[in-house]
């Protein structure tokens, strides 16, 4: 039996984990951080939801959400401009005081009117700092079959300290029932780690929020996942496909660079499960006389007249004659001047780097250049 996914409400937290990537999220939400040449982080989960048959998605955001609003628009690119359901942005609600949320549960409390009104039976909620492509109906079916109250989508493996510093990890019994939850473990090691995607019956979520928030308990991770392992049947659902999790500038850089391997790219952007994004109507990219491009991901609208290696070029990037770009992530409309050499840098949107300069950073620790900077 396959579950009718239009009965599942999607909730995406656009701002959570902003603090792990301050460079890129100082002017935008985590969800609207550019990724992979033409995408934003939110595109991946949002597309997975749509490709799995969901048609109602609320995006919870608390601050710096201009870029997010500009990106998702009416939701049309994801087929979410609907007369029923579709895409709804849920910014802080006027009556909440300072316009900031004290935690995920507080944010859900603010969106309660919307959540209650949707005719959905289940909720899939996720953060935007994970990138994967999955048929979420499998997760919902597993959730229903297992009788779980909350299902946590997890991965298992050996993780470094920087990876666990912003992670929820679980100890579970053989059947997948969570026995204990550790938030941000301080040591590297072998863990079952949350992918920050959770499935729960809508009514249960509503009851939990209504019960906990008035008592000042607003933290989903601490006050539910950690505190309620006895009271609730919390279970893991092991995801075994390809994924990336962003926990800082280094992992952001690494996750981008992994897409240069076609086998990884094909696991995230499948023919049968495309990743939708805002379109810009750029012309195709132009490769000039004597340009040389190898091992790179290039979006439309670029004009390349120099050398580009092991790099990711977003839309409308210009690389002038004699310029050399190595190991870089150049975001939308970056311009690299004549005979300039750059290596291991990340340029935000509209950065202009002049002629005959040399900017480089050590391999593995990329240098970030902020939006609209002119060098």
């Amino acid at each position, binding site marked *: 039996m396959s579950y009718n996914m239009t009965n599942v409400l999607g909730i995406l937290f656009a701002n959570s984990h902003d603090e792990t990537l301050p460079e890129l999220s100082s002017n935008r939400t985590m969800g609207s951080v550019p990724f992979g040449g033409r995408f934003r982080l939110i595109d991946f989960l949002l597309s997975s939801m749509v490709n799995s048959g969901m048609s109602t998605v609320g995006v919870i955001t608390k601050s710096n959400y201009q870029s997010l609003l500009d990106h998702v628009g009416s939701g049309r690119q994801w087929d979410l401009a609907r007369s029923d359901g579709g895409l709804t942005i849920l910014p802080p609600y006027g009556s909440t005081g300072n316009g900031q949320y004290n935690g995920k549960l507080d944010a859900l409390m603010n969106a309660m009117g919307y959540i209650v009104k949707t005719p959905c039976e289940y909720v899939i909620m996720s953060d935007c700092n994970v990138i994967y492509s999955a048929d979420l109906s499998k997760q919902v079916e597993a959730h229903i079959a297992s009788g779980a109250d909350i299902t946590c989508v997890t991965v298992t493996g050996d993780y470094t300290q920087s990876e666990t510093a912003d992670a929820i990890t679980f100890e579970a019994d053989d059947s997948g029932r969570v026995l204990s939850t550790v938030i941000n473990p301080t040591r590297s090691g072998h863990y079952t780690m949350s992918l920050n995607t959770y499935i729960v019956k809508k009514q249960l979520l509503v009851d939990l929020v209504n019960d906990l928030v008035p008592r000042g308990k607003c933290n989903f991770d601490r006050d539910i996942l950690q505190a309620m392992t006895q009271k609730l049947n919390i279970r893991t659902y092991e995801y075994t496909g390809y994924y990336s999790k962003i926990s800082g500038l280094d992992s952001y850089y690494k996750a981008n660079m992994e897409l240069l391997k076609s086998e990884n790219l094909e696991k995230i952007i499948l023919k049968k499960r495309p*990743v939708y994004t805002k379109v810009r109507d750029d012309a195709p990219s132009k490769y000039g006389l004597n340009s040389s491009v190898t091992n790179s991901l290039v979006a439309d609208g670029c004009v390349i007249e120099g050398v580009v290696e092991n790099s990711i070029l977003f839309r409308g990037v210009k690389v002038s004659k004699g310029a050399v770009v190595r190991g870089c992530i150049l975001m939308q409309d970056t311009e690299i001047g004549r005979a300039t050499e750059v290596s291991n840098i990340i340029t935000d949107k509209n950065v202009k780097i002049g002629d005959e300069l040399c900017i480089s950073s050590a391999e593995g620790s990329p240098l970030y250049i902020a939006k609209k900077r002119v060098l």
Partner: protein
Amino acid sequence: MYNKKECVAMLLAGGQGSRLYALTKNVAKPAVPYGGKYRIIDFPLSNCVNSGIDTVGVLTQYQPLVLNDYIGNGQAWNLDRIHGGVHILPPYQSSSGAQWYEGTANAIYQNLSFIDRYDPEYVVILSGDHIYKMDYSDMLSYHKKKNAACTIAVLNVEYEEASRFGIMSTDETGAITKFVEKPKEPESTLASMGIYIFSYPALKKYLIENEEDTSATKDFGKNIIPAMLAAKERMYAYSFEGYWKDVGTIDSLWEANMDLLSPSVTLDLYDPAWKIYSNNDSRAPQLIGSDAKVQNSMITTGCVIDGFVDFSVISGGVTIEEGAVVADSILMPGATVRKGAVVEYSIVGENSVIEAGAHIGARPESYESKSDWGVAVVGHDVTIGQGAVVAPKQIIDHDI
């Protein structure tokens, strides 16, 4: 509902484009891919939107499936409007019988009721087989200033070329004094670009009269324009300067694509003030592999390039495997060139596969006689088997 529009565009998109042979076997000419991510019809449609014309009738007849699917509700061109927008107009059955479109004038005649719904003062007639950027609102201003019944956009062509076009003679005010379709000995070099603006009452009058004349061929160039000239209507030529190319033949389609790679050609697709819109698909950015060598080319989303690409236009979703060579060629969406295959001076159609070691086309240098050489064409959804050879000028529309 208030529906009035000052100007409505009618885009003739029903032509078979028989001189494109295999490339229009299953698709109408306006839906033929061009320039990596476009189809020919993107140019007139984008021109309409950029010129402020938001009501466009697209007249289809020949193989409309791809075209209908591509245009959809017109959203890609911002033509999904509450009033107006883009409308596909196929031939239809009426109480007096069913009739195919017989000629350009008849196609418009059969849709007079569509035009009437918008009660326009002016109608622009466009065709779906030209690549150009043009502000129709400038032409409309000229039409109004001249108080014309009909204005025809003209391009100054080389004298040797002139006999391929409808040729206009004009007086010093720009008024058209004579019009000859494809003259053997042209009196002027002002060629019709197939773009007409009519004051609607005049258009309607001559279309109805032409229908009543059973001997007429029901064509704008052959009937309507000569009839209006004979009746001494105010007809003016509007000079256009800039890039314009008829892509009705294999050679001209190939040239028009190659023009995009030439720094001296004025067609600028990167101008944010005059975007050419297209129905974008969701694909990954292009991945240029470690062993790839790419130069002098245009490439778009969804491509995976591991071979050598030079002077070529590569459309969305194309795969070029290691050791393959693609030079001076056009690969249409979804084409695949496998390991070690060579594609030179060729057009490879949508979703076609060139298997390992196959060789398509050849460079002109190796041919002494020009007449033996030409661009090779592999149609859509065709597989060229391992090691097979397609000679220059050959047009292949089935697997070999």
